[in-house]
């Protein structure tokens, strides 16, 4: 049975007329009671089974469906007196003021009306907002003091929030308003931007109240057996009660005052039924004091119907668990725990080509990993496969059945980490079923997800159709996302120890013997070693650079400055004596050190070149090999960092102390100059500001020189220095703070000034302007902070925390706004960028039609290379 899916072409909005409403209502609701003593819904009550059913076992009286099948049907309440729909209160005010109080004509000259109608029509045709024109109509019409059609003098209408209209000190009842609105002609309605067929103004005054089907306000049965009704039901009960009382009172001929009060009360209940957060109306509350969630509240906001249930939905076929690293996986793989693999399935259609294979899955049953969980028979019946029936089901399998097969190695799944800030936050991986309970991923794919392993969790989704799987594989595969469309560089690449490892391997003069060399390359598919670099004690040996060259693809030619480059002037280029100039010729690393610039995520020159000039497969293979090799490389030497690595020799310590004393003296000199009024002002700054700036400058200089001194004594044999210099992790500043001096703590870019009157802490004299009294931390992390320093440090640290918290929410909103504004834009076949209205935003994408992912092409280098290659070719 194949059905063509129906496509909704358009959705039309309008107001519903009372007549239409009565027609679509399945029953009138007259009693406020819900269930009778036996627990059955009362007829013509709020839970009438004509409105749909929620209790299992009952059948809907309208459509005959059971709970879950019946979508629910609307009922209605006949309101004794009309009430105003709060949402339209402002509009009603505008219309009342713009129309004649006696004949209902829009107070504009016929010519004007014609002009406005035309304007509205053109705007609508162009798909633009008619708001401005409509507002002008209202503004113009309001000016008329007298009706130009019947001559009636107009009165000022005062509007009191939320739903009261006063004309001439006399309150207008909804009935009066409704009869006025009824008098407006269809032609005039068009001038005020409404559609007379779909939305007549009098329909904004409710005479019938729709009763939503029970399916949208289900009651829940508590553990005690008591029923707890939905907020909407509560509100409807209130409305019906007041409605009844109103009717009784009116029939009994109650005084006008009481009638008006009841009318007001009915208005209140209907208002809060629609929107329980109208300003000026006390929100209706539940018995517990919690404000009720009525219609508007259900739609609004992040968890509301629109953003929470319609734009974002919960899905099946997904899993979530903690992630952990596994450098032995390929970058496009993801390790999936057995438990999860047994739960997630892919539906297979049984065909002559796969029937044997499918039978095998079914035979294995649900507990024997690559097995199957369900069988869907040709008639659509779903049968659960169990240990006991798997053999039998396997023999029953026929063509046309479907089998839910457990996912197994090689299946394509989507892997995601929130916040999903860019498209690389969801990529397609291939499954590798592994023991233990975490998702495993190659650390090289951490940067696009922005993941680390301090407890992060990630989600996994299994695409269910062949189209989805192929789309995932072609467009979302990790391999296809090595380049970031943000800047056209690689976003996947080595991090942390990958960089340290390759740095150590390629930077040392280490001689590697045969078994070690094979050990290093063991995890890659390289099975042959190059010519040894030499022999020592009769044993051949290889260098780290040679080993690294083995994983480089043949034909790769590159020259670039490494991260450790010290930017000497002039640059010696190829003759660099610091081994910071990398030369790769035909896939051989001839000189230079491999560091962040070579293989690091975001910066890697090698990866950039490989993706752009070779292909993603070769690049992937290279990243895989590089991560494995680097882990071996770092393990060969061993790599650790401890408190001893922060040790600075006594002579350096003395030097640091000296600089600190000097800085202190200088600060004191500045202060005394300031106090004596001799400090020279910087242009545009006050003297105090100048002093602050000078002190800050002096202290940061002192910290830097402390760092320099410490750095001079901590050489390339120090792990932290290796990490900082190679770009693996941390910076020299971190090391400075650990070994030399932590430095000035700042709040809002200034020294710490708040606290007690005239001083930051009671440990200092009032008016002390010195370094220590305003948050300068002279100590290093190793030496330990004094109590006041520790406190200042905490102040500075707190600012950082607050900053991050504020920033995430702000940038999240920025992102949401940007995406919302731009999401409909698409590059067309003619190269233009258009929105869904087909309005042209750009005539040529980015002015040159080049994909930012390949933005290198617009650079001068590319042309140069092409020209050179052509001319070089011919020369030979």
């Amino acid at each position, binding site marked *: 049975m194949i059905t063509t899916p129906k496509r909704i072409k358009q959705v039309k909005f309008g107001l519903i007329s009372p007549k239409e409403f009565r027609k679509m209502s399945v029953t009138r609701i007259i009693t406020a009671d819900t269930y009778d003593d036996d627990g059955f819904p009362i007829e013509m009550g709020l839970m009438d089974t004509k409105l749909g059913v929620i209790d299992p076992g009952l059948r809907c009286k309208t459509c005959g469906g059971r709970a879950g099948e019946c979508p629910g049907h609307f009922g209605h309440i006949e309101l004794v007196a009309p009430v105003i729909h709060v949402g339209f209160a402002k509009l009603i005010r505008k219309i009342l003021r713009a129309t004649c109080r006696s004949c209902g004509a829009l107070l504009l000259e016929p010519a004007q009306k014609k002009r406005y109608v035309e304007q509205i029509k053109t705007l609508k045709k162009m798909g633009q907002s008619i708001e401005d024109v409509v507002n002008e109509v209202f503004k113009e019409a309001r000016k008329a003091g007298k009706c130009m059609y019947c001559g009636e003098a107009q009165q000022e209408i005062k509007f009191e929030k939320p739903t009261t209209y006063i004309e001439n000190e006399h309150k207008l009842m909804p009935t009066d308003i409704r009869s006025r609105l009824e008098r407006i002609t269809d032609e005039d309605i068009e001038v005020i931007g409404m559609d007379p067929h779909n939305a007549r103004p009098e329909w904004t005054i409710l005479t019938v109240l729709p009763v939503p089907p029970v399916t949208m306000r289900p009651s829940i049965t508590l553990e005690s057996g008591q029923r707890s009704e939905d907020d909407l039901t509560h509100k409807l009960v209130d409305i019906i009660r007041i409605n009844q009382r109103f009717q009784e009172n009116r029939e009994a001929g109650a005084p006008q005052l009481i009638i008006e009060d009841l009318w007001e009360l009915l208005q209140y209940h209907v208002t809060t039924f629609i929107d329980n957060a109208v300003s000026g109306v006390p929100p209706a509350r539940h018995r517990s004091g919690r404000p009720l969630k009525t219609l508007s509240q259900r739609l609004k906001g992040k968890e509301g119907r629109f953003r929470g249930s319609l734009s974002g939905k919960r899905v099946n076929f997904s899993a979530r668990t903690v992630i952990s690293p596994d450098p032995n996986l390929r970058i496009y793989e993801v390790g999936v725990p057995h438990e999860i693999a047994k739960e997630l399935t892919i539906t297979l259609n049984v065909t002559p080509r796969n029937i044997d294979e499918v039978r095998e899955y079914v035979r294995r049953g649900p507990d024997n990993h690559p097995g199957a969980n369900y069988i869907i028979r040709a008639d659509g019946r779903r049968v659960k496969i169990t240990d006991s029936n798997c053999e039998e089901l396997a023999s029953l399998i026929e063509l046309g059945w479907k089998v839910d097969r457990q996912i197994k190695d090689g299946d394509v799944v989507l892997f995601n980490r929130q916040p999903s800030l860019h498209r690389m936050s969801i990529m397609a991986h291939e499954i590798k079923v592994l023991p233990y309970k975490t998702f495993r991923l190659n650390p090289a794919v951490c940067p696009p997800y922005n993941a680390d392993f301090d407890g992060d969790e990630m989600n996994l989704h299994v695409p269910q159709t062949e189209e989805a799987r192929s789309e995932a594989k072609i467009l979302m595969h990790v391999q296809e996302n090595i380049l970031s469309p943000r800047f056209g560089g690689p976003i996947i690449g080595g991090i942390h120890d990958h960089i340290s490892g390759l740095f150590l391997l390629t930077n040392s003069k280490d001689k590697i013997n045969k078994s070690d060399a094979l050990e290093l390359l063991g995890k890659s598919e390289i099975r042959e070693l190059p010519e040894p670099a030499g022999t020592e004690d009769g044993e051949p040996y290889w260098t780290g650079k040679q080993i690294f060259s083995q994983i480089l693809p043949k034909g790769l030619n590159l020259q670039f400055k490494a991260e450790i480059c010290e930017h000497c002037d002039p640059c010696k280029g190829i003759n660099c004596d610091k081994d910071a100039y990398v030369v790769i010729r035909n896939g051989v690393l001839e000189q230079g050190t491999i560091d962040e610039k070579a293989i690091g995520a975001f910066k890697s020159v090698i990866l950039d070149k490989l993706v752009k000039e070779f292909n993603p497969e070769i690049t992937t293979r290279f990243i895989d090999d590089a991560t494995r090799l680097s882990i071996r490389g770092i393990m060969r030497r061993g790599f650790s960092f401890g408190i001893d690595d922060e040790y600075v020799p006594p002579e350096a310590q003395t030097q640091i102390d000296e600089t600190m004393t000097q800085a202190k003296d200088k600060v004191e000199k500045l202060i005394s100059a300031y106090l004596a009024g001799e400090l020279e002002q910087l242009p545009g700054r006050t003297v105090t500001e100048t002093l602050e700036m000078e002190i800050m400058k002096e202290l940061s200089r002192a910290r830097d020189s402390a760092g320099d001194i410490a750095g001079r004594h901590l050489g390339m044999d120090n792990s932290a220095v290796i990490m900082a210099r190679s770009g693996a992790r941390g910076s020299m500043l971190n090391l400075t703070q650990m070994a030399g001096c932590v430095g000035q703590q700042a709040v809002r870019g200034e020294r710490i000034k708040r606290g007690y009157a005239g001083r930051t802490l009671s440990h200092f004299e009032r008016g002390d302007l010195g370094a220590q009294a305003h948050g300068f931390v002279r100590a290093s992390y190793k030496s330990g902070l004094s109590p006041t320093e520790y406190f200042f440090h905490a102040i500075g640290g707190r600012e950082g925390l607050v900053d991050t918290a504020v920033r995430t929410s702000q940038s999240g909103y920025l992102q949401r706004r940007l995406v919302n*504004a731009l999401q*409909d834009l698409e590059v067309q076949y003619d190269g233009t960028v258009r929105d869904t209205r087909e309005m042209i935003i750009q005539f040529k994408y980015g002015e*040159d039609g080049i994909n930012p992912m*390949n*933005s290198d*092409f617009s*650079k001068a280098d590319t042309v140069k290379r092409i020209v050179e290659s*052509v*001319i070089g070719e011919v020369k030979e």
Partner: protein
Amino acid sequence: MNLDQKTIEETVSSLPFPQKIIDNLMRELESTPVTKEQMDEIIRGIATGYDHSKIEAGEAAGVVSAQSIGEPGTQMTMRTFHYAGVAEINVTLGLPRLIEIVDARKSPSTPMMTIFLEKDYAFDRDKARELAWKIEATNITVLGSMSTDITEMKIIIELNKKALLQRNMTTKEIADRLEEEIGTTIEVSNDTLIMRPEEASYRQLLQLVKSVQSVILKGIKGIKRVVIRKEDSGEYVLYTEGSELKEVLSIEGVDATRTRTNSVNEVFEVMGIEAARMALIHEAMDTLKEQGLTVDVRHIMLVADIMTVDGDVKPIGRHGVSGEKASVFARAAFEVTVNHLLDSGMSGDVDELRGVTENVIVGQPIKLGTGNVKLIAKKIT
């Protein structure tokens, strides 16, 4: 045989490539002689490369751009810092600045101008300084000291000769200017100006002091400070706190072609929408670059373009681009849900379900990227 420069120029400039690539190629070929075959080979090479790097039809360029700008937002700093190099001027940077640009605020929180000077002025310190005085709003406090004499009910202003000379102003000029602005007569004696309030009350006196202080004697109102800086090229450039593009551009000696302001709206008012678009791109790029984040210009161009398509600088968000969308569902799903639904009911709007959100809401495939492609299988014959 090598082609002569003229034929090369002709062939290259008629190639169907972006201008930038043509320029690059031209520059490359200026120095290298090529034969006809080589030329063809080069062109073929570039054509293949260009084809390869072109954006594909159906790409959701909008979302990619939005993500590319939004994602680095998390890595930006919050604080206001000093403008690179000019320590005297505070400029909003980082995330707040980016939000400001995207919001299309009427005026930035820290308006700033970079004024380049014409050749005759740019390398002459005195001339540059002179120009700076012309631009900087000068009031009486910088020119001399002001004191009030309560017993006599008068204000005595003693002008500083040096300051006057520096700014090329005379006592008379100042007196005239003050008279014109305030309306009271001024007694001028040497370098001293004496003013009296109309009514001899203490309050009036204080009021007078205030109004005298607020009179701009020279320069442009709104430019609080001008800083002169010598760039590496040896050129003097003026940096100002406060922005008045129109007034500054009309000053002689200001290089109107290079002078810029960080107030996009001002650029729009003075020079029109295309200039505003360029200003948006420039400001956003600068903000990101300053934070050390690399984002391709094309993304920022797209954002600038959507902000300026209909000839007005519209903000990204509910009051601008998103609020003017054709689809009711898209607007309702963004912000102020209920109002959009009520309004659309009123005017009988029709949602054509062409965008992304609308189709997600009704549960249909979206018409973008792979969703926009229809494949019909050929019948096997």
